[in-house]
């Protein structure tokens, strides 16, 4: 009986939209509704495959996502390993408090922060660039730097937070291993490399597989709050594209087709990621 409200919620807000996915196979007209609109089969998907714009959006998504993984995935691991070497509890706690904080700020606030420090009129970073004799850079309207900005701010927000899992994994390592190693004459660097690191390796692999599962999500909300028409060329990702085409240009059917493509690929990635991790590590998300 207790399940009824939960199941109703699922039915209405999660499963009804799945029925709406049908409009990806239609030339949907909002006045005729799903029942009255004309069926066009896979036409929207043909349009999608041939659209040059979608190709670019897809590449942008992959690029930003892969940059985020390559550049940002190792950082929390390093942070956890380094924090583990700190013996001053006060210092350790202070640093932890500081690096978790950005996780709780919204993307809008973070965009605001970075608009401020990267501003060309007296922003901190451009002041420093000019100090060294460089030309000020308008990061937010530069196709050259916008992706770097996206990756950096994503890192700024989440690296500290993502370190928590690894910090916990290190805390779970058997202390006797460290003692045995130091009796054998291993210094702290060696203990870090040969005990801590292998000790958290299963967690690292698991997190990595799971991260790969969401490779098509390059950070829609983040990019929406930061970008502008000048940088669509390098910054438009699938999520923002669906929004622009669907709600901006009212091309409901095409936008739904893009969304469906995204959902299907995402689904396959996550399910296979979980399968691999179950095979490899005997654990997964379900």
């Amino acid at each position, binding site marked *: 009986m207790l399940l009824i409200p939960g199941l109703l919620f699922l039915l209405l807000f999660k499963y009804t939209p799945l029925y709406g996915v049908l409009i990806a196979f239609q030339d949907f007209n909002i006045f005729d509704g799903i029942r009255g609109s004309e069926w066009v089969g896979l036409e929207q998907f043909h349009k999608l495959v041939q659209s040059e714009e979608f190709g670019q959006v897809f590449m942008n998504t992959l690029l930003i996502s892969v940059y985020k993984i390559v550049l940002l995935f190792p950082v929390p691991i390093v942070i956890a390993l380094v924090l583990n070497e700190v013996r001053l509890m006060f210092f350790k706690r202070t640093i932890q408090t500081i690096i978790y904080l950005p996780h709780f700020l919204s993307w809008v606030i973070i965009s605001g922060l970075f*608009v401020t420090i990267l501003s060309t009129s007296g922003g901190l970073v451009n002041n420093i660039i000019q100090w060294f004799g460089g030309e000020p850079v308008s990061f937010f309207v530069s196709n050259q730097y916008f992706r770097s900005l996206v990756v950096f701010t994503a890192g700024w927000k989440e690296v500290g937070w993502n370190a928590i899992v690894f910090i916990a994994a290190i805390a779970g390592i058997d202390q006797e291993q460290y003692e045995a190693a130091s009796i054998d004459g291993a210094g702290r660097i060696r203990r870090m490399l040969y005990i801590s690191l292998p000790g958290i390796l299963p967690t690292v692999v698991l997190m990595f597989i799971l991260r790969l599962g969401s490779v098509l999500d390059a950070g829609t909300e983040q990019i929406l709050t930061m970008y502008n028409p000048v940088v669509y060329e390098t910054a438009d990702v699938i999520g923002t594209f669906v929004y622009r085409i669907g709600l901006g240009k009212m091309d409901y059917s095409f936008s739904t087709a893009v969304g469906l493509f995204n959902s299907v690929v995402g689904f396959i990635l996550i399910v296979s990621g979980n399968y691999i991790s179950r095979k490899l590590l005997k654990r997964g998300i379900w």
Partner: protein
Amino acid sequence: MTKRTKGDLLLDIGVYAFLIALGLIMLLPLASVFSKAVSEEWAITSGKVGILPVGFQLDTLMQVISSSVFIRAFCISVGVTAVGTLISILMTALTAYPLSKRNLPGISFCMVLFIFTMLFSGGLIPNYLLMRQLHLVDNLWVLILPGMISVFNMLVIKSYYESLPEALEESARIDGAKTYTILFRIILPLSMPVIATIALFYAVGYWNDYFGPMIYINDTALKTLQLYLQDVVMDANNANLTNKSIDDLMNMSPEGIRAATVVASTVPILLVYPFMQKYFIKGVLIGSVKG
């Protein structure tokens, strides 16, 4: 313990240098925007403000927080967060309970129903059309109802329930307690740590939500704080791109206004942050993947 070698000393220096640098990178943007919010007008327009404020004034900040649009957006966000968190926690905790009973008939099928929605969704447009049909567009309930239950959070609570000793429930049943009594008198009170954590995550989610309001709320009278903030941040940004025409219209620079608005919206989080800290670490660990 072992005595310190030269390598250890180097390691120590490296460790502290790395962490101090990291801490500074996290703090500098905050310090910089704070400085701009409280610095004197002439210092901002001439680009003299770096990390530390130049001069000190609270006029810009006062003007921002006393504007009726800001107050309204702030109140709407507080309301949505409070009501949303309450409903979410109640729904999530209740739904998780039957699902934690593995021997109930049909329960594993229900689990599949829930988990499937974590992996696959209709996407933006079908969701939008549904909200339109339900007449939820430009209605603040749209920010709460569709996200009432986060399946992930529910799984966290469920696994916590499962970790409670079964004997507890059995003895209560022998004493004649019904399901509801057991849930409200025994299970929920014992689950307070995890419930507090999840409530915190829900609250942060509602407070920070930008995507939802952007899609479903067009009515300017219903703008949430994040929407209002985005207007200020990006308007000021565009004004900077073209020219500084806004300077002539207002006696305060868009830079200063923007910084003050960001500060005014950040302060509430900074104020509660110390209190929530003791909860979230535990929460992440309960929530982190396990086999």
